[in-house]
């Protein structure tokens, strides 16, 4: 870590959510950002877009800060929600030292190579499947994320989910909130 990074860090929390298209990484990023708005915090969000989006991995990044956010572009995330193996390969090298990984062990088949990272395991896709819809794996992982980081209040995340799916069926909101709670309950600290 350069001197500059040392000087700059500490004010902003930079998060990446990465997986393959269809795993809901953009939705997960959106929920985190909306929860921040509910809590009155400064936040920016970005997603990979256009041709990039069709290239395999999709990712969303969120920056949260108590002060002004300088760049919405995240190069060295402090935290990563990793939904599949290619995303671990892509992001592990760029996570800030001491950073946190939330690993979807259903689709990530190795441990991180770096020993300066913390990791939490959650069988997000498996749990989502048990809940009846594999597409809520993102929310299961999100549950593990907020339980581990305590960055957001569960109530604000639940509110964000309710807001986001307001136009959809009530059952969908309920399923996502169950997924969130399962994720909070079933995370495993990596040894």
């Amino acid at each position, binding site marked *: 870590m*350069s001197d*500059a*990074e040392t*000087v*700059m860090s500490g004010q902003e929390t930079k998060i990446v959510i990465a997986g393959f298209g269809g795993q809901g990484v953009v939705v997960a990023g*959106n929920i985190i*950002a*909306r929860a*921040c*708005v509910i809590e009155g915090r*400064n*936040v*920016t*969000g*970005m*997603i990979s*877009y*256009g*041709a*990039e989006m069709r290239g395999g991995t999709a990712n969303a990044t969120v920056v949260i800060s108590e002060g*002004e*956010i*300088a*760049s*919405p*572009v995240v*190069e060295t995330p402090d935290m990563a929600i990793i939904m599949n193996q290619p995303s671990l390969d892509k992001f592990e090298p760029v996570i800030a030292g001491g950073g946190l990984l939330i690993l979807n062990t259903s689709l990530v088949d190795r441990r991180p190579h770096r020993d300066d990272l913390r990791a939490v395991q959650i069988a997000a896709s498996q749990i989502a499947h048990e809940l009846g819809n594999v597409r809520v794996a993102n929310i299961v992982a999100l549950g593990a994320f907020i339980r581990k980081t305590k960055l957001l209040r569960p109530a604000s995340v639940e509110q964000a989910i309710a807001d986001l799916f307001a136009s959809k069926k009530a059952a969908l909101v309920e399923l996502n909130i169950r997924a969130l709670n399962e994720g909070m309950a079933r995370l495993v600290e990596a040894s």
Partner: protein
Amino acid sequence: MKILLKGNEVMCEAAIQAGCRFFAGYPITPQNEVPEYMSHRMPAVGGAFVQAESEIAAINMLFGASAAGARCMTSSSSPGISLKQEGISYITAAELPCVIANMQRGGPGLGNIRASQADYWQAVKGGGHGDYRLIVLGPSTLPELYTLTMNAFDYADHYRNPVLILGDGILGQMAEPVELTPYAPVVDLPEKDFVLDGCAGRKPRVIKTLYLRPALELVHRNELLQAKYDKISSELSLFEEIETADAELIVAAYGITARIAKGAVRTARRNGLKVGMIRPITLWPFPEEPFMRAARTAEKFLVVEMSNGQFIEDVKLATACRRPVEFLGKGGGWYPTPEAIFEKISTMCEKSLAD
């Protein structure tokens, strides 16, 4: 209440709040959310949305819509803006108000879809043919994109001139909470006495840009336009200054780059470095006054831009080259990190101490 929207959507909502009732555009990344958003919002507010067959058609549809009296807008990204230059020249010559957004991407050519600021010259110096000027606004956050887009319609109507919102792929694609405040005009809005709506109860009107006879008619026409541009220059100058009073080093940047640079300037201050920043908000007219002032007190300048040295020329002009101006920038989709800018600032400050 703040809501979370993407930059492209923030801009659309601001336009609608400001009474924009005609939008024509053509999809191009990274501004696709604009036509998508407008396609459902425009009809909902009783306006018209047209997905044009080309950027050329889109800007010419604005030529017609503006002549018909509507507040109107088009948006695109760099290669598409190049195509619009013909229409922009005509609209400027005809003195019709409209708002054009450029969410810049990497160039030249098809380039890439990453953010860029390489259309600065095209925006502030020309692009189309003839001696004309666009009012160019460079928002650096989404709340500012919201207010400046509403203001853009006012400036366009007030000066009867197209206003260009010079954004970039990051600004268009990022999401940030924005308070959707109600629209209120920021300048006097003259009656539109040029509108073509049929000549009932009045003499027929002509909107034209051809001046063949007498021989000097176009010269006089140009003189009138230049007088208007002089008036705009004397009246419109928007900028943000950060800790410039005692600054030894002044960072100059606009748009998203300025937002990123601001983080670096704050860090520099926390580290005891006497660094300030000037962020032009109107890129044309260029706010020369804060630069002239800073050139008297600061020792040197640093320009940061996402292009290979375009904006720097205006900084050098505004400071009359009285102080050294260093450069941090690249084209083609490169963007600076706050860390990289801080490192450059540190190096420049150390060099000052060594001198």
